[in-house]
């Protein structure tokens, strides 16, 4: 699972949960997988990302380079920053781990890079 995917995930589907975003990551096995850097792609993607969720997720995955608290328009030309964003967004792979609902604590497993977001009958 890439952090780009994680950025869209929520556990609001659980009955009764209102604040299921963002999911916390309990990483078990994290890998770095190289992906071609495309600055235009990152620039276009940025407005769709919840920045604080990405920053938090990157930290949880041990992304040492870190990300700034905010990214302003003026920083979009900063290639180094874009490369860091690219790395966090697309190159971090959570292969094994758990996603945790911030409200209920419910854990969703990640196996082989695949999150399993299926609910039990009583959670629907």
């Amino acid at each position, binding site marked *: 699972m890439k952090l780009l*995917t994680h950025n*869209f*995930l929520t556990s*609001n589907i659980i009955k009764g949960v209102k604040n299921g975003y963002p999911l916390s990551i309990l990483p078990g096995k994290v890998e770095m997988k190289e992906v071609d850097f495309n600055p235009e792609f990152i620039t*276009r993607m940025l407005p769709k990302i919840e920045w604080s969720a990405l920053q938090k997720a990157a930290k949880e995955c041990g992304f040492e380079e870190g990300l700034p608290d905010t990214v302003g328009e003026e920083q979009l030309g900063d290639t180094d920053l874009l490369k860091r964003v690219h790395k966090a967004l697309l190159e971090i792979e959570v292969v094994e781990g758990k996603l945790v609902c911030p409200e209920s604590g419910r854990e969703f497993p990640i196996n082989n890079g*695949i999150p399993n977001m*299926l609910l039990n009958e009583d959670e629907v």
Partner: protein
Amino acid sequence: MPVQDVRKHRDLHLERKHVYNVYDQIAPKFSEISQKAWPNVRRFLKDLPPGSVVADIGCGSGRYLHINSKVSKIGVDICTPLVEGARNKGHEVLVADNLTLPFRDGAFDAVISIGVIHHFSSQSRRLQAVKEMCRLLRPGGQIMIYVWAFEQKHRKFKAQDVLIPWHGNQSNKRSGSLDLSSNASSDSESSIDTEDSRKSIQNLNRTLSDPGTEHDETQLQAYLRTVTQGSQFTQKHRCNTLPSSLEGLSGEESHDETMPSVLAAECRKFEASLKAMSSRKSSKMKKPKLEMPLCESEDVDVSDFAVREFPMSSCPNYRKEITSEDSEEVFLSNESPDTGVICMKDKASDFHGHQTSTKLSRPNGAQLKHSMSDISPSKLQSLKRFDHMSTDSLKTRTQVIGMSRQHSHSLPTVNLTEPVQVSYPPASVPSSPAIRNEFFKNSTELSRFYHVFKDGELSKLISKQVPNVRIVSSTYDHANWCIVAEKCLTS
């Protein structure tokens, strides 16, 4: 237990048994099947601006996830084995339920749902699935939905809720490539893997009659006689239609039906078409090459002739149905060009696939239909000449299943360099009734539930019951209804 709970359990039971469990079991087969993406879907994805985020809900083994490297794709499916297959191809995927999609509102620029929601067993579940997917769209974002159509040219569904048997587990390995369910992904975005397609086509067994027999018509007539007499063909392997109340489900997978009158009528139609073919034979012999451009050309996507989920799988039990209802269109195998063996083709393949019109029309024998995908422009030009269906053949994207009847009958005289066996499922239809019996007996018991949509049904569902979404287009594409809808800009 309250009525709605009973219904819910029943719906779930039906889906578990005839969708989820089936896909879980047949998932490994999908990776063996090489399938091209539906052109319309491919185009929808390719037209998305760079940097878009797309969700493929019901992605299967990721058939569409490789298309357009400039957009981000996330695939979702409830079937873990299929998702794992997609993952192995390097795609971003997760396991989730279409009815409870774990995504925040408005996160996606586009959503595709290709051959998915027709598996939901009730209207309310189908509606919930659509609503969930529309929830994911940002304002202005679009969703493309493909579902099986009730209205099909080559088959008549007796009801909208049907069980379609799965035949991918035939001992004949070749059947893998013929399979009806199509969730395997293509290998690459670029066009044709002719090597693979040719191989799979060569592996197809399509002939009704043994190679080297004298006259096609005689063979076929003999076969038809057996078919019309053979009640053994109407046993378990029919298209099973479910009563709309879904009662009597109780674990039974099939409802046996015999419809000898329909069978006989279809056979009569087939014989008539055969006769029509023979009468036009001489006039078409002059330009054999032009009549079979797709078969002889190397750069043609012959995998389009292979099984696709739409509309192939809409033929319920193609091995059985081919004997009863499929007789309308045939085309030739040029395995031995001289003999001009005629192959029964799967009736479910839709011949007229007009995208621009929702009206179904019967093609006449003079029409050559062809797939526009992956055909080079020069080839398109020559094909256009033969497309009597429409002056704008590019738009219509009609599917060549094979040759039109009149052309096919003339094929025996064509000397083609590439002996391409263009045939549709079944993988093998043995020539003798005894063998056929045995063959059909070995069919798997797995069958999938489908609710086939009537003209306008899905559009109406969306426009009336899904708020903030408007219909952009509704087209008929090879036995499917294709709906594109858009999230309104102001909510």
